[in-house]
Every structure is written in structure tokens, then in C-alpha cells.
């Protein structure tokens, strides 16, 4: 039941991101709710389903941006693995550590995505994108982390009671 409920939450995130992420944009910077979901999942759990969710989320991101399936698929997959090892090596999983981890891993994913985009699209202003897009998004993700963690925990508790 718990895994089904988490799966549902994953789908809810996909829906929210694809349909309404632009509603949360601040100064033109949209939070990547799918990426946040992947990072938080990686920090907390690791099993084949989490990996599959990361790949699926990446493919969704690919579909509704540049249509080159696989770029975000690969970067999200690598991100969830990095998030898992970061989660394991964290001294303690308190909110501050989680926020820092989310910011760091978002920066890592951005760097990886820009590198992959440079390979397939060429002529990508990598450094400019990193500082003007990835960095603000990472900070935004950091700020959203407490809310995200709170929602995930509440959701988990709801089904634990049953």
C-alpha cells in the first residue's frame, strides 16, 4: 500500500510539473518538480522502482522540452544514484542537510544536462546557462525542500496509520 501511495505521489508530481510548473515560476525560473521528486526519492530510498521512476521522469522532461529522448533520462538516472550515495553519506538527514544536498545535486544534474545538451545540440552557452538557469533553480529547489519533505512525510504517515 505504501509503495502504491508513493507511486501515486510520483504520478501527481509528473502531472503537476507538466501542467502547472510555470505557475510557480519566479522571475522566469521554473522549479523542476520532477527533478526534486527524483532527488528526494534518491535521498530516502533506493530500489529498481526509484530508478525506473527517475528514467520515466527524465523522458517526460525530454518530451516536453527539446524532444531528444534520453538526455534528461540519462541525467536523471545519474542524479538518483548520486542522491542515493549522498543520502547514505550524510551525517544526519535533517532538513538543513537535505536542503544543501538538494541544492548540490540539482547543480550536479544541471551540469550533466548541459554537458549532454552540448553533445547533442552543440553551441550551448554552458557557463551562462549554468549561472543564469541552473544556479537559481538549485537555490529555488533548496528553498522548496522543507515543504517537499513535509508533504512526503505527511503522505507516508497517512498510509502508515492504515
Amino acid at each position, binding site marked *: 500500500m505504501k509503495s502504491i501511495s508513493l507511486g501515486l505521489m510520483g*504520478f501527481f508530481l*509528473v*502531472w503537476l*510539473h*507538466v*501542467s*502547472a*510548473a*510555470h505557475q510557480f515560476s519566479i522571475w522566469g*525560473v*521554473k522549479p*523542476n518538480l*520532477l527533478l526534486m521528486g527524483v532527488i528526494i526519492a534518491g535521498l530516502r530510498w*533506493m*530500489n*529498481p522502482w526509484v*530508478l*525506473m521512476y*527517475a*528514467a520515466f521522469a*527524465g*523522458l*517526460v*522532461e525530454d*518530451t*516536453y*522540452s*527539446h*524532444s*531528444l*529522448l*534520453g*538526455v*534528461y*533520462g*540519462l541525467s536523471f*538516472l545519474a542524479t538518483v*544514484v548520486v542522491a542515493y550515495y549522498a543520502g547514505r553519506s550524510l551525517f544526519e538527514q535533517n532538513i538543513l542537510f537535505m536542503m544543501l544536498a538538494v541544492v548540490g545535486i540539482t547543480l550536479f544534474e544541471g551540469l550533466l*544536462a*548541459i554537458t549532454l*545538451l552540448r553533445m*547533442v*545540440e552543440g*553551441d*550551448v*552557452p554552458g557557463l*551562462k*546557462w549554468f549561472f*543564469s*538557469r*541552473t544556479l537559481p*533553480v538549485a537555490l529555488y529547489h533548496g528553498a522548496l525542500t522543507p515543504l517537499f519533505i513535509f508533504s512526503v512525510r505527511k503522505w507516508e504517515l497517512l498510509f502508515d496509520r492504515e
Partner: protein
Amino acid sequence: MLDILKNNRVLITGVVLAILMAGLLSLRLQKPEIGDVAQQGLDDVISPFQSTYHKGVKTINEWVDDYVILVDLKQENRQLKMQIETLQEELNHHINSSIQFNLLREQLKFMEEDPHQKVFSEVIGESVDNFHHVLVINKGRSAGIRRNFPVVLREGVVGRIQSVTADRAVVQLIVDRRHQFPVLIQRTREQMMIKGLENHLILEPNENRGMLVGLGEGLQVKRIRMLTDVQKGDRVITSGMAGIFPKGQLVGIITDVRQEKHELFQTAEVRSAVDFDKIEGVFVILKSPKSNNFPIFSSP
């Protein structure tokens, strides 16, 4: 054997998925039409969510417009004020309807006057990342739309179809960094290439021609020869040379021409004719009057 698989299931899943992703990417780059099948599958999963949201937001907005405002006013002040506000609301509604009617009439006029066969499609989404500038529209292959078909509005050129599934299509806007196509300065007939910028469009020459290139949210023409007559306020139109856009469609207006002392070329900033923040619907050109199958300016 089973134990090995069980113990390493995370690793095995990870490796299989990584190979799958790399395979999909290489397939998409080498044979885009095969990659479309995978995209169709994903679209089938995602599109119901997107459509539901789109319809939901529309309904809620209508509901808010029609009822919530009036309920709030009723609480503030009783009947008389409410009547006045109701009348004002009605007036606003009529003004809005009138504006909308005029806008739609203009687009309808464009639909009738323009010789190309077009299909109107509603915008239901936009790029989900912060690097690309695309729109998602609610019509696809079943409406006759194919990859690279031009997307226009009465105001000017919007972009081209980047990918298409049965009932959805992704439009790459002309201001996207990946976009560049040949254009003409309407006044002088000088040919240029235009390209999308991060914040505007730039024009740059294609050997002897300029090229309009998409770079994010604007357009710019770069490397215009010093002797070329380009002025602020000049209208930039499509030249029809790229094979994607029909000739003569308005792209934008030159807002600034820069001429640095140490540089051998000029650079022109172009303000797009279309306000991309306000697009609710677009026309996709399906057929040119000169061709039976595809627009002659587009590849199948």
C-alpha cells in the same frame, strides 16, 4: 543465478535503464521517425493529465470570473452595490467578449485571406525545462500536422513543429536558441539570417545574406556587413528560402542596430512580432496552394 540477479537487482536495473536511455537518444538522433514512436507512448501517458489540468483551470477561471467576485462583493455591501458591481461585471464581460471577438475575427480573417490551408490549435503547455522555448498544442498527426510544418499567427511567425504525436505537437518557437532561418529586410530586400537569443532575436549574414537566429526569448541579426542599410524600425520578413516558412510572413521589427568600432559587422536586435507570453492558439500551415501534399516550403 537467481540469487545473483536478486542481490544485484538495483545495479542491473540501473545499467539496463542507462543503456535504454542511451539507445533512445541515439535512435532519436539517427532516425527521428522511430524515436517518435517512443514519444507517442509517453505522450499517451502524459496527455490526459495535461488535458485535465487545462480544462480544470479553464473551468475554475470561468467560475471565479462568474461567481466568486460577486460573492465577495455581496458580503461587503448588500443589494445596491451588488447591482452596480453586477452591471460593471457585465460591462467588463461584454468588453472582454468584444475584445475577444475582435481578436478572433482578425484571426478568422487571416485564416480566410491567407492562401495556405491551416489548422487552428489551442496551446495547452509550455517547455518543462528552463533551457528551451517550446509550446505544446492540442493537435497532432491526426489533424495532418507533421514535423517542421510552420506555425503562424496573424501577427507573424511563431515557430515550427519540433515533434508530433497523434494528438499533440511540440512547437519550437522562433526565439528558441536552436532556431535560425533566412529573412529579408522588407524595405531594402537585403537577405539576412536570424537567430533566437536568450532574450531577443539576432540577425547574422549567411555568406552574403543575413540569418535570423533564435536565442531564447528574442531575436538578433549578427554580422551584418557595414555597408548594409539596416535601420531601427525596419520590418523583418521571412524570405521563403529555408524551406520551412512561406515567403513574406512578418518576423519582427528591428529595435536596435549596434555598430562597435572594433568590429567589422553590425548587429541588429529584433523584437518579435508575436507576443509569446500571450499566445493562446496558433495556426499550423498544412498545405501550400502550390503543393498537394505538404507545404512546398517544408520537408515531410
